[in-house]
């Protein structure tokens, strides 16, 4: 790559990405096909087993990123290289990334870790390399929680794993139906609806000790629990007063406030705005399900979507954009709404139904479930609508992902 091309690329992609979150999506979407950052991995000396583990994991994480692409060395803009060698009981790992056209390292670091920490280190280094190449926060060290129904099992249980599939753990084993998975903003707990006691109640599941506490268990449904960015309130859908409506509960005082009062309709999936003042949710009170936004102090909900047969499962990102599911041409498609401009872009392929999107920590990627004839798997999407990549598929059904951020 020539310097001129690199500068052009920088101005086209990287600079807008780091300048503001708003510019990020617009600029990427309006220039589809803008070149990726191309990498080759020819500089790796992976002769010892720990080195092989480390670099396999590093490569897997880097090429998951939608702005990075592996190409043959002759075509690559950047060369990833490094070594991992034993130093007593520790492993010393060195990683460098070389700009091939400038013939200069843009990244170079050494690490000294225990031999059993190679995957942890690879996720960390991947985020550092992503940061140095794109200016964006990486996503590799943030877990994705999801619901899984393993082949041969009855229970819909909760799992979590890193995006590269490593570190998968099972968090429940009680065979009850669970849905509506969300992280608390501090990343320490999960909120979900479980039928543990026979009815759909909302629980907080603390990851450190596995304790589950019922946060809402009124008559009817208790669903869609979502904790506000400051951790002090929970939005949820309750039907105790005769029909499903949106409520907010102050988690300190326990005070419950109903925010909506509409004709009989289905409501679901509240998600907080980044400033914690508004809530987006799905409601069918004007016919088909659409997205609405309401202030957390109440008032009339404002409709955000016009098109699409159904508009479901909104997730309001820190970037200000709302990712959601829209039924369109008979398929469920992941869509991104800019609530300020009212513009919707579609980011998932039409080869299957994609549902239940959740923003990655970087505000660029999205994880969603992909379903064909009842078989669900987890896919990584990119808000510029690039290729969808499988994160977890096979051996069961995996759905309702929520990315910690």
């Amino acid at each position, binding site marked *: 790559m020539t310097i001129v091309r690199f500068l052009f690329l920088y101005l086209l992609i990287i600079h807008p990405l780091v300048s503001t979150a708003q510019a990020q999506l617009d600029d990427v979407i309006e220039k589809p096909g803008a070149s990726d950052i191309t990498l080759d991995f020819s500089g790796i000396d992976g002769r010892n087993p720990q080195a092989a583990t480390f670099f396999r994991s590093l490569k897997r994480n880097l090429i998951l990123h939608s702005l990075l692409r592996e190409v043959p060395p002759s075509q690559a803009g950047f060369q990833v290289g490094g070594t991992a060698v034993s130093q007593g009981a520790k492993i010393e790992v060195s990683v460098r990334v070389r700009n091939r056209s400038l013939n200069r390292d843009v990244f170079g670091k050494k690490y000294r870790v225990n031999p059993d920490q190679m995957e942890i280190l690879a996720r960390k280094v991947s985020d550092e390399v992503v940061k140095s190449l794109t200016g964006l926060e990486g996503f590799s060290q943030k877990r994705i929680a999801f619901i899984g129904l393993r082949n041969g099992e009855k229970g819909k249980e909760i799992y979590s794993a890193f995006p590269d599939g490593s570190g998968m753990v099972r968090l429940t084993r009680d065979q009850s*139906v669970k849905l509506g998975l969300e992280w608390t903003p501090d990343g320490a707990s999960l909120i979900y609806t479980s039928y*543990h006691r026979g009815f759909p109640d909302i629980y907080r599941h603390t990851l450190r000790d596995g304790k589950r506490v*019922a946060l809402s268990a009124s008559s009817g449904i208790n669903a869609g629990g979502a904790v506000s960015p400051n951790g002090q309130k929970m939005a949820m859908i309750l*039907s105790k007063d005769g*029909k499903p409506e949106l409520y907010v509960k102050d988690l300190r005082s326990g005070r419950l406030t109903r925010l909506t009062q509409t004709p009989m309709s289905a409501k679901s*999936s509240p998600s907080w705005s980044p400033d914690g003042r508004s809530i987006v949710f799905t409601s069918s009170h004007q016919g088909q399900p659409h997205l609405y936004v309401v202030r957390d102090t109440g008032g009339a909900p404002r409709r955000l979507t016009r098109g699409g047969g159904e508009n479901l499962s909104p997730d309001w990102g820190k970037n200000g954009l709302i990712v959601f599911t829209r039924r369109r041409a008979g398929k469920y498609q992941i869509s991104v709404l800019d609530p300020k401009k009212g513009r919707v872009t579609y980011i998932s392929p039409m080869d299957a139904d994609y549902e*239940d999107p959740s923003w990655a920590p970087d505000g660029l990627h999205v994880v969603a479930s992909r379903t064909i004839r009842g078989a669900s798997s987890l896919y990584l999407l990119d808000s510029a609508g690039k290729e969808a990549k499988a994160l977890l598929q096979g051996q069961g059904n995996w759905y309702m992902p929520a990315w910690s951020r």
Partner: protein
Amino acid sequence: MKHFLPLFRFLFVSLLLLILNACAGNNDEDPLQSDIGMGGGTLGNDTGTLPGGEFIDIDGLPPRDPMGVPVEGAYAPVYFGYDSSSVAPSEMSKVQQIADALSSNARYTLIIQGHTDERGSREYNLALGERRALAVRELLISFGVDGSRIQTLSFGEEQPAVAGFEESAYSMNRRAEFQLMQ
């Protein structure tokens, strides 16, 4: 005697929770905190009102107390159209049968289970299933049944009656099912 009722209820709920926990068995890795009383409304139930919004409660659900044991006998499910919770005229006689059963025995209570087909999000379908159960409940109330005898229990799309990915399966899954309790 009347004063002891809350105590009995408390003991009953405690016992039920103990049994449920014991039945759950091998759950060492996810201990459940036994916060008793969640079913009866010890959570903050003081619904606030909002400026400018007039809140008219339609018949709210009764507290979720233990509702006894299931009564033998099956009732035909009420079926629904896609994304709809209106009870079609053709389904009305099924609702009338349930109303008759409830009026024949004052000790009977009812759980209406709401279900949906698999299309749409699971969370939306949970609300849609609830809406179906509530629509049948409203009908029963209009037939003269006391709303305090009727609980709703939505499963959304989680418990299909028929497996399959065609309308023939979907139409059998969009339903409300009935369980009399005493």
